[in-house]
């Protein structure tokens, strides 16, 4: 097995992977003298085309991916990404459209945006959507900015945002960046928001409660209407993190739960690929009262045409250079159009079916802190395995040997040693069963041979990597002194 070198390690002068057409205007030699020109880009690589192609082909093969197998990473909704959506997004009429072109010349793009907004309104039960946010966290930030703008206009932006202890890390972080303090709300023994704690915390200095529903345990917040009532009665707004919308499409709509603002992850619920970390798209939906504050420009309809409204007096401004991750939106729209109303409902139903199938099959083998019914995901923990000195990370790494991507472990914080499993609706039965078998074997191995797990993975391209060492002495780029890899 040859380890892939860094491109810099195979670079040499005189190799070329690309040539430009010859300059077809008169060459002015003197021209550059007026510029702060650099002699060279030091260390910049120079290789041949076959080297580029092999480099990335081989690198790609060391990745696990949805296209390779089961990827039950909880909260991430790693569903199948239909290839036809990518094809749609690569149509030249979309890829070659300039974001500053006059609206009359980009009617197709504007219609895509407008329709997506309208369909998301219907799916989420909201009044208006903006597609500018480039990801979920971006949407959270924007959503809180909208709330703040409204409250500021009414006289007091308020000081605090309430966030359940089970929430994703971006929630408190977004609250902080939008200028708020965070007050954590406890979960009750069922894994739901502790209403008493909420009641205590919900003062008139609270701008909003950020709720995730179903929450990160996969548990539906049954009292959502009551919660909304409480928050609203004290002048606050109800923000919903829509990362888990995959459990609800066609079943229940956040708008009908009296949610005021929601962000949706098109790269989760609406199947746009994650690309190894992005790009995503995190549209934000609002109720009427917040619509005037949406970022500009806003797509409007006028006389059967689509227009861009650049300046709305109350708009909070801009959170993106242009119109958001447009080509990602194309893919999500393609998905919505392909599924249709029945398909969107079936998607939620089967996502919940698959998750409950796994939950039921692993109950007993792994500890389930909350016995509450769950929807699209379930969170086990390593509590039983800890008795043998085995932690969730060891279970995770061992799963790699079985050809499966591990579940999420970094949260929810209320489940120590969490194993958060979200199968999504697209998974074949066979892959579900292979996962269940693997988890079953691992539970046995944890008792019988804990070392096997602690030294896992054994069959992957690299063995377990030392993350502590990486952070202790960070090497964040290649320099001549980085040691090349060894053949093994």
């Amino acid at each position: 097995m040859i380890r892939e070198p860094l491109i810099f390690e195979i670079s040499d002068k005189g190799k070329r992977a690309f040539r430009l057409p010859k300059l077809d205007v008169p060459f002015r030699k003197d021209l550059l003298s007026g510029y702060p020109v650099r002699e060279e880009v030091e260390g910049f690589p120079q290789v041949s085309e076959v080297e580029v192609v092999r480099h990335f082909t081989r690198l790609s093969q060391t990745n696990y991916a949805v296209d390779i197998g089961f990827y039950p990473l909880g909260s991430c909704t790693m569903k199948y990404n239909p290839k036809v959506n990518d094809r749609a997004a690569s149509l030249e009429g979309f890829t070659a459209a300039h974001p500053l072109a006059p609206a009359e010349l980009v009617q197709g793009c504007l219609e895509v945006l407008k329709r997506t907004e309208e369909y998301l309104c219907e799916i989420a039960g909201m009044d208006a959507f903006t597609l500018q946010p480039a990801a979920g966290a971006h949407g959270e930030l924007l959503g809180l900015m909208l709330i703040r703008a409204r409250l500021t206009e009414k006289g007091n932006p308020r000081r605090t945002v309430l966030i359940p202890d089970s929430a994703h890390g971006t929630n408190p972080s977004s609250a902080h960046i939008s200028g708020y303090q965070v007050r954590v709300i406890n979960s009750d023994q069922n894994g739901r928001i502790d209403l008493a704690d909420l009641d205590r915390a919900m003062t008139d200095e609270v701008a909003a409660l950020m709720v995730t529903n179903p929450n990160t345990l996969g548990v539906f917040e049954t009292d959502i209407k009551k919660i909304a009532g409480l928050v609203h009665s004290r002048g606050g707004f109800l923000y919903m993190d829509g990362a888990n919308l995959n459990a609800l499409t066609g079943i229940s709509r956040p708008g009908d739960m009296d949610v005021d603002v929601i962000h949706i992850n098109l790269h989760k619920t609406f199947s746009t690929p994650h690309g190894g970390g992005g790009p995503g798209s995190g549209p934000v939906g609002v109720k009427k009262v917040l619509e005037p504050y949406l970022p500009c420009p806003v797509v409007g309809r006028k006389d059967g045409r689509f227009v861009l409204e650049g300046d709305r007096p109350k708009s909070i401004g801009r959170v993106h250079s242009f119109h958001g991750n447009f080509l990602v939106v194309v893919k999500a729209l393609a998905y919505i159009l392909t599924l249709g109303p029945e398909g969107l409902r079936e998607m939620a139903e089967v996502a919940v079916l698959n998750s409950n199938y796994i939950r039921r099959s692993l109950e007993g083998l792994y500890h389930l802190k909350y016995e509450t019914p769950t929807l699209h995901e379930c969170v086990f923990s390593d509590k039983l395995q800890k008795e043998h000195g085995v932690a969730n990370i060891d279970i995770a790494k061992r799963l790699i040997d079985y050809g499966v991507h591990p579940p999420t472990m970094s949260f929810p914080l209320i489940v120590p040693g969490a194993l958060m499993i979200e199968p999504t609706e697209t998974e074949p039965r066979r892959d579900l069963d292979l996962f269940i078998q693997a988890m079953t074997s691992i539970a046995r191995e944890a008792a019988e041979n804990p070392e096997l797990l602690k030294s896992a993975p054994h069959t992957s391209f690299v063995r377990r990597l030392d993350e502590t060492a990486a952070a202790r002495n960070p090497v964040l780029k290649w320099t001549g002194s980085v040691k090349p890899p060894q053949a093994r």
Partner: protein
Amino acid sequence: MSYISLSDRDKKEMLERIGVSSLEDLFRSVPDQVKLKRKLDLPPALTEPELLAWMGEMAGRNAYGGFLSFLGGGAYRHIIPVAVDHLSSRGEFVTPYTPYQPEISQGTLQVIFEFQTLVCQLAGMDVANASLYDGATASAEAVLMSNRLNNRTKILVARSLHPHYRRAIQTYTRNLGLELVEVGFTESGRLDAAGLKAKLDDRTAAVVCQSPNYFGVVEDFETIFGLAHGHQALSVAVVAEALSLGILEAPGRQGADIVAGEAQSFGLPLGFGGPYLGFMACAQGSVRQLPGRLAGLTSDLEGQRGFVLTLSTREQHIRREKATSNICTNQAWCALRATIFLETLGHDGLREMACQNIQKAHYALEQLTAVPGVKARFSGRPFNEFVLERPRKWAEADAALRKQNILAGVALEHDYPELKGCILVNVTEMHRREDIDRLAGALREALR
């Protein structure tokens, strides 16, 4: 098509195993009160051929191909080598999540590591992150980072910074007690150094300046950043046309403390404005305040080299409200494309492309200002964009050009009332000489 993979038998057996009798039963925890009692009001499902036909129709309602466009302004049309599409479309790059499990994500991680290295080399900085959303948010993040680094609150922002980036900085900082002060430009189109000097003080957190700036003019970073450092303010260099780094001196060598910007030019299509590629680089000493992900080198159990995400104590999933930024999902796949693009072009190819942009911009400037009535608005040196002052008859001329499917440039009046009547013209290596001549000829004709 809902892309599910269960057979009818599977569904039945699975419900049995769970111990419920129908799919509905699985949703018992959702109160009736909030259940949707009707079908979603959406168009009926389309099959793959129908979807592609519809999308093709939408795509066809945009101007491209047949149009000759000189629009730039932060979104540039450059060559994209075929290898970029070919390699970046591999399922193993398109369909994984963020590389939280490094042992099965070495591909993505090594690509990020190479991307970080390339950005550092181009920007002349020590450390670069794995990407941010785009140029606007990268600029805003740079401002927030300056404030974190020196706890000062006054931000001097060049008026020649991309107006959308400025707007985003405003939006981001409004709630955080930061004061934004604008610094104008001179007749050269460059930052008004005198004005800068006047506004700089010891409360100044940072000076934010773009080069080539929104007018396409190359700034004198050395002077500007020298002034900033005189007050211990941080220098934030914004680069909206990353291609310029192939030939212009690295901002890091001109005194920049933070370099932030947009790298769409590196292998990403115009795509109506996204997804693009925000980037940020800084000095080694500031790395703990850098937002966004970082890939780092390490080794495995057997001592083999490998890559992991690192310094994640800066990030939201560990630090929650104390994180340097709330960013989670970034633009990783765009960074992959940029990496393939840059490694394919290589040192010489990138430099050649950048040089061609300068040469062609000059040629275009010459040809267009030779048209009676058309003048260059600024005297500063352009990279691949420049501002033209339009004679009065322009409005009709514009219509005439439009009829010939020519888009001469971005009108500046909306963002710069003081530049009423001016347009920003972008010329890249994609414009052939005959394209430029065609624009000049059409203009000459229209203004006759």
